[in-house]
């Protein structure tokens, strides 16, 4: 089946454990994200947001249900094939930045391009371009330890964009940043940076200010997704 969605989740269930300790973390979730759309998923702690995002990011197999990324069904793919899709089609932004400590900002960005098979000069060009777009030119040769939180998250965003992924998944991207810096960083991700190319973004967050930049806000509670979040916040 071919779809035009950047991300499509069909009847996703995730049950942790079994018997008395069973937790239904994601409960019959359906979700379609259109190209270019920014979707915000909010909800109380423990409602299953991270679990849902891990499933959408092909990092966690659901107990049942189907995931399509850019129209490709992922159910029958093996680990390496899933890794390939994560590398080329999905960009991740995490609360903890997760940069490689021994590599400079520039090298962190180039690494994912090299992993995808890009030649060095092309990776260099692209990383230069991204560093400039994110205002990080002066920090290019610094190790993550020498960067501020906002700078680290911008490097992480550059890394997520390096392979021109059409789907960006972010889990609490502003969680470790003060609200001003967080908002600036997210605005950069959502409003600038060639978004006219149709990149979709799914953001899991507690940060209410981000509702401003979202096209759609969803509410997750007890693993169940509600389309219209208005009034629940």
């Amino acid at each position, binding site marked *: 089946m071919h779809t035009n969605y950047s991300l499509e989740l069909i009847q996703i269930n995730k049950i942790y454990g079994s018997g008395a300790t069973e937790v239904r973390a994601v409960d019959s979730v359906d979700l379609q994200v259109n190209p270019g759309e920014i979707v915000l998923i909010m909800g109380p702690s423990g409602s299953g947001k991270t679990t849902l995002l891990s499933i959408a990011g092909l*990092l966690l197999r659901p107990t049942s249900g189907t995931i399509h990324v850019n129209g490709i069904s992922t159910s029958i793919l093996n680990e*390496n094939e899933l890794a390939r*899709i994560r590398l080329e089609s999905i960009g991740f932004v995490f*609360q903890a930045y*997760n940069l490689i400590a021994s590599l400079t900002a520039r090298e962190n960005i180039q690494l994912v391009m090299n992993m995808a098979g890009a030649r060095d000069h092309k990776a260099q060009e692209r990383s230069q371009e991204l560093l400039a777009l994110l205002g990080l030119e002066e920090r290019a040769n610094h190790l993550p330890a020498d960067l501020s939180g906002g700078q680290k998250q911008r490097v992480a965003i550059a890394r997520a964009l390096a392979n021109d992924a059409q789907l960006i998944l972010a889990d609490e991207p502003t969680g470790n940043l003060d609200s001003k810096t967080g908002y600036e960083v997210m605005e950069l991700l959502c409003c600038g940076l060639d978004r006219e190319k149709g990149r979709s973004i799914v953001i899991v967050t507690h940060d209410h200010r981000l509702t401003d930049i979202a096209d759609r806000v969803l509410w997750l509670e007890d693993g169940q997704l509600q389309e219209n979040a208005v009034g629940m916040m």
Partner: protein
Amino acid sequence: MAKLAWRNLTQQPLRFAISAGGVALAVVLILAMSGVFAGSEEHAVLYMRNQPAELWGMQAGVSNLHMSSSILSEETVQQIQQFPGVEQAIGVLYASAGVDVGETEIYSYVIGIDPNAPYGGPWSLVEGNGSPGLNEIAIDRDLAYRYGLTLGDTVSILGYPLTITGLSEGTFGIATNVVFVNKTAMALLMDVSPQSASYVLIEPKTDTNVNSLENALNSTIRDANIMSRANFIGSDQEMIRQMGADILQMMNVIAYIIGLLIIGITVYTATLERAREFGVLKAIGANTRQLVSTVFIQSYLIAGIGFSAGIGLAYLVSILVARLSPEILILIEPRQWLSQLPVLVIVTGVASLLPVQRIRSIDPLIVFKA
């Protein structure tokens, strides 16, 4: 990934240095040990190499100089000497005995030579003369130096005092110390005829085919075994090699286990330390091959650097030892360390297996944890 592997190692320079140094030490151990044996092998056959005899006669059934006892009767010696095609044949007596140098006894190969013989004695004489009279002896210069002896001093063999009248060179090794005494005196001590010999050093006539002479001697003189110099040398080296082989093999195994543990532990620790980062790499799309290659590159970097440093160190050690203890000849040849290379490659691969297993089991969901 190579860059990442390199950075992961160099971020902990001390640990990197220690582990590469450990590998280097294991390599030095292996090379020095095999070098000592190769050196002993070479030392042991210097006597054979440096005599002009192309054929060597010995008692039938004997095919070695070292660790052998050979005696040819007066008649057999004469038979060889008068054999057509033989230019000259010099008989020497040969036995092992302790040489009492005052402080201690040095286990030695004692060669009894006729003072008038044109060869058979020391091939390189530093001082005095190499044709000992009845109560005289020629010993190695380094041995003499070590025990504060010089020309005119006395040493003894089996209680018989002998005056040092010659100092030779290249005759002192950890496995082989060669001294020269008077053949007649030695015959008395051994209770054999002075005209008999342990070995006969045969120089063929110039127009004689050495091979045919060897065959003719062997088929005519039943009491003797005649060997070409090359075969004789080969046979002794083979014997010494076999004597050393077990020890050497054990040392090699120990050294390799040390190397294996060092590389394994280092790379495993480096992997554990960066478990989260490997989880991140997995999450953002690194495939198994890329992750695993990072581990292997780290291992082979340590092994390669350690190995190169080890070879350099081993050569350095051999030079230093040659300066400080000339009796220990450490012979290191490219073929020795080249032959270790495939083993190191395998050992390094094995050392990487545990860290590889560890990396494969890292859960990429770690990226969502704070």
